């Protein structure tokens, strides 16, 4: 079964530092997403990515966030200056065409101290 791979699984960072969360989506998928989940609560949409550009972003996805697909396989989320409230589980997901659900990665637990 194809998988979405995320690294690292855990990241602890100082407030104000930059972090990069990495994801390798399923190779033939076309749609890519980042979501976050705080303390097992609601799963919040951050950004969607299609055809090598951002297709939609939420209010949460402000100027401190950015996404890239630098080499056609990796999909990264960068947080430039982390805040305490950025502490959450960050999930990458990808989807194919048609009747296709999301496949989520196993997540990166980000802790900002």
């Amino acid at each position, binding site marked *: 079964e194809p998988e979405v791979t995320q690294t690292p699984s855990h990241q602890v960072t100082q407030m104000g530092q930059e972090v990069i969360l990495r994801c390798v989506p399923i190779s033939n998928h076309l749609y890519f997403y980042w979501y976050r989940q705080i303390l097992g609560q*609601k799963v919040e949409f951050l950004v*969607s990515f299609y055809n090598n550009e951002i*297709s939609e972003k939420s209010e949460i996805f402000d100027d401190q966030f950015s996404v890239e697909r630098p080499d056609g396989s990796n999909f990264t989320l960068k947080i430039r200056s982390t805040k305490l409230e950025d502490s959450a589980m960050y999930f990458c997901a990808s989807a194919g065409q048609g009747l296709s*659900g999301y496949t989520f*990665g196993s997540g990166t637990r980000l802790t900002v101290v």
Partner: protein
Amino acid sequence: QQPVQSPQAVILREGEDAVINCSSSKALYSVHWYRQKHGEAPVFLMILLKGGEQKGHEKISASFNEKKQQSSLYLTASQLSYSGTYFCGTDPGGATNKLIFGTGTLLAVQP
């Protein structure tokens, strides 16, 4: 904007049935259902499209009332492995296939 799920939590004995509801304030193109076990990623269960097409799980069924913007997930003869938090994800349509996830329903199946 976030879809509302009910109930918030339910406890079952093995073999019992459960229904989880999802209600949106927006017109929907499709509804997805996911199950998340503690500390793990959500796992895709079902997708229901406007017009009745669906694809999903062999032991779980669902319905989608487009006019009422509601979906229900039916779990029959529950097993211990069904325990987890169930989320609906609603897609209003458009090019991004973005999902807005519901408030979640915690299901605990006991022996």
